[in-house]
């Protein structure tokens, strides 16, 4: 099915919309929606390759299920079920995204027979050893930073974001290149106080899935460690009809096979 989808190449110049004054928060909101909230729910099979500075590669493979609480682009649930490596198969990571407080995160470790809630203290830790952080996977609240439109060219809104609580994060600022027609962030670069690049995210491939422009390949590079992580999405589906109850503690131990096949 995927092959039949029209591949949307980056930078389709003829799409360029005429420049006009646009509110920066509008762009940010739209980009947030396009990145995390398209359709009511969705699922994808993700192949993650973590490549360190020496070129050594580790592979993770998981199914990610996502369900929005409502249409307001706020509350949301994620269910991440690991298939590979084989020794962590059936491990589950679950997120309940809250707007008023830190997200609730759960980890199910089948071999240890443990369900653990991960304290909300810090969401900028590695996601299962990759160069993506938890917050990259579940999304950073748009009100946590002050955004300014620093540049606009034919294809991108370039937005600079400065954290409101600099103590809580490792970066001093980040810049996002938001594609004008899709509103997908195509590139994000995180900087330290000296303006040196810490990490950079790139959308490597965008496909149209069920009518939704979807990033199906992306990378996150850590300029300090020299490592990078590639994510490839396959079997992407929207509006699957995921019931709310599978995003509960009970389903951590008993994975909802129907949605994971």
């Amino acid at each position: 099915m995927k092959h039949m989808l029209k591949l949307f190449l980056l930078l389709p110049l003829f799409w360029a919309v005429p420049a006009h004054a646009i509110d920066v928060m509008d762009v940010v909101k739209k980009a947030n929606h396009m990145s995390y909230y398209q359709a009511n729910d969705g699922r994808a099979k993700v192949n993650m390759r973590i490549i360190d500075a020496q070129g050594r590669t580790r592979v993770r493979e998981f199914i990610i299920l996502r369900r929005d609480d409502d249409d307001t682009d706020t509350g949301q649930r994620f269910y991440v079920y690991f298939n590979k490596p084989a020794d962590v198969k059936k491990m589950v990571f679950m997120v309940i995204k809250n707007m008023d407080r830190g997200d609730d995160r759960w980890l199910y470790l089948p071999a240890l027979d443990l369900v653990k809630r991960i304290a909300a203290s810090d969401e900028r830790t590695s996601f299962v050893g990759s160069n993506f952080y938890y917050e990259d996977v579940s999304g950073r609240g748009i009100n946590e930073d002050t955004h300014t439109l620093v540049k606009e060219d034919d294809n991108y809104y370039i937005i600079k974001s400065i954290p409101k609580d600099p103590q809580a994060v490792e970066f001093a600022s980040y810049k996002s290149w938001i594609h004008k027609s899709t509103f997908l962030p195509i590139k994000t670069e995180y900087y330290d106080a000296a303006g040196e690049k810490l990490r950079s995210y790139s959308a490597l491939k965008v496909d149209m899935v069920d009518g939704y422009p979807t990033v199906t390949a992306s990378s996150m590079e850590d300029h300090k460690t020299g490592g990078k992580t590639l994510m490839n999405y396959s079997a992407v589906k929207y509006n699957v009809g995921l019931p709310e109850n599978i995003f509960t503690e009970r389903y951590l131990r008993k994975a909802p096979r129907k949605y994971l096949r």
Partner: protein
Amino acid sequence: MIHISETATRRPKVFLWASGLFSLIMIMLVALPSIWPTTFPMLHAIQIDTDPENMLAADEPARVFHNAQKKVFSLYDMVVVGVVNEENPHGVFNKKSLANIYALTEFAKKIEWQDKQGKTQGVISVDLMAPSTVDNIEPGGPGVVKFEWLMNRPPASDAEALSILKKAQNLPLLNGTIVSEDGKAVALYIPITSKNISYNVVEKLKGKIAEFDGNDKYYITGLPVAQDTFGVEMFVQMAISAPMAMILIFLLMWYFFKKASLVVSPMIVAMVSVISTMGLLIVTGNTVHIMSSMIPIFIMPIAVLDAIHILSDFYDKYPRYKDRCKTIQHVMKELSAPMLYTTLTTAVGFASLALTPIPPVQTFGIFVSIGVLLAWFFTITLVPAYILLMPEESFANFGMVKDDKGQTTLLTRILHGLGRVTYSGAKLIMLAVFILIGVAWVGVNKIVINDNPVKWFAPDHEIRIADRALNERFAGTYMAYLMLEGPAESDDLGAYAKAMADDMRAQNSAPLTTMAPELAILAQQAKDKKQLVNLLIKKMEQRMETVSDEEWDSWDNALTWAGEYMNRGEIFKDPEVLNYMSRLQAYLQDTGLVGKSNSLSDVVRTVHRELFMGKPEAYRIPDSRAAVAETLITYQNSHRPQDLWHFVTPDYRKTNMWLQLKSGDNRDMSALIEKVDQFFSENPAPDGISYDWFGLTYINVIWQDKMVSGMAEAFIGSFIIVLIMMVFLFRSLWWGIMAMVPLTFTIGMIYGIIGLIGKDYDMPVAVLSSLSLGLAVDYAIHFLARSREMRKKFTNWKDTSEAVFGEPARAIARNIIVVGIGFMPLLAAPLVPYKTVGVFISAILVLAGIATLTILPALIRLFEGLLFKKNIERM
């Protein structure tokens, strides 16, 4: 060779100018590329090398392995900064001290610059270990596990500071490493891009530390710091000791020969020799190493030795001829043979160092040897040339004066007395020699071979103080790494595919049985085992898309089985292996040689404990591979997942134990190696695991071993060569053996003393034997050559001895005093190895001189018949 001297006396100015010009060219060849490297890229600039690692050749297996493992586990050399507060009851765990530590960490993270080649040098900020850069993992309430920075920001209160301490003490990887065992001090481990920038980094840190007020004390140490600081202080040594030696030698000679203008000539010889040798060293692209930095101080006293013989003889003989030219001709005729031989023996002694397997020692030996030959050449040309350039009138009152009453100098009288004692008390002297040899033998057997680059600094040096302060409080600042590795897997893919197919059929699983025949076909396409199983998994996944829900579970299980089959090679996830490692660590701790060991097993046990509410009994390795894998993936959910790869490779086939040692003494490291060998032989490792060492502390042991055995070979080699030369020189086996007696006795005595006083047999001591061999034999050559020569004029040894203890003994005594004192300025060096060399070289040369003037005449007295048989027959 007398021709050269004669030529020089005929054209004195040419020779002096030529050598001056030669020195100037040498200086230019070194100075130009050092000052303007880009303008003179074809020339070699002066290059300083302080890295003891370079004591091993670049292709030395231990060193190659060391560097390869450092890369595999992303390990860097570290600067260790310890912070201590002795006034606050909680040490540095107070608001203010931790704020400073936080600020210092932030500052250290940013130390970075571009070197001349455009490479980034400085601190590896991602691997820096400090309270503010490491993670804390702890239960955050029932059912909750918490990951957080241990010290995200400076604490807001003293109470908060104490809670940081409590958290850190609870984590085995941090306790004793980042926080001291007494819970009062903090240490930062600052990895740097390369060892030779550590001095730079330390200077920057010190600058920042100077900004802090308060009563915290900062100590900075670590092997790289010691090594790099050594390089800087090496120059101090060269700048102080070499000129001091020069001045001392000048003053001594002035005292002996009473004529300042005349003693300038040996000084010129010394200068020209040193400049030429060092020039050649640098021009040929050799680095100035700890060893080669000692070249000037070695050449200088040796260079003046022959000149002293010439001047001494000239001084004694001048009154007889009252003519410079005639006197010098006479002197050169008499001395040319012994001078050539002493020069050759000295050169051979040093050149023998080329036989050691230590590159810097080889360079040292070869260039001192070259320097000795150059000094000889300059001596026999420039000294006569210089004398001839002086106006005859200036020699009016020159020379050995002896009035009618026979009143002579103190030295002359002492030597005369000594001569008589050696004649009458020969047997007593030999008895004393045998007793001393017995004592020395006891001492030699007590020798302890040991070294430690940090101890190359004087005990009151700040590095030594820091070393003591930190190793008292923390698990240790000396790093050694013990690598464990699974056996290489066979790459017979066909056999593997067959075995796996059999295993699949044995699983009693319908999907596996169905898929088993596929393996033989897939084995044709796959490159390795991993790819083979991956191909199988892909096939199974394709099949799974079409199976019914009822069948799906069994397929899913089959898939899990295949994935786990592939991961069997990941031996360091095996609980049995991890438990073995824990036992090894406990054993290491019990040896008392290891301050602390950190390993993958600690990571697994700690995470496991924190997942189970921090209960002490949960500090263990879980029972299954999958459970281990889960603790490891949990660990990777932290801020620093890459830390795991310091302990294990991502394929889990190789692991690294980080051992912190409180002592960097080679003796202790060697003992540890032995203990670990013992453990592995008594407790065979599971899965055919093998082990090996790396780390600077280990590398030091390797080069020490090479040094000790290499030096023994070099010494035996040069001993034999010098003996043959002696037999050849004296055309007699007995005389040849006699010539070796004083130096053999001396070296035996010196090593006996080293053993008796408990001085470690270290790098400088190891070099001493070869160093002194070539020098110590000189006295014997002069003494025996002159004795034999003079014996011809007398009927018996009794009368000969009187004459020998005249001028020849005086020349030897003057030489003993000059070189004995000439090496003393090494004592002014701030670095222990130079002091050691200074003390012992002086001691050896003085002792060898005394041995020559006592044992040799005593032996001649006792074996007169044997030694002068021919003479007697002839008479």
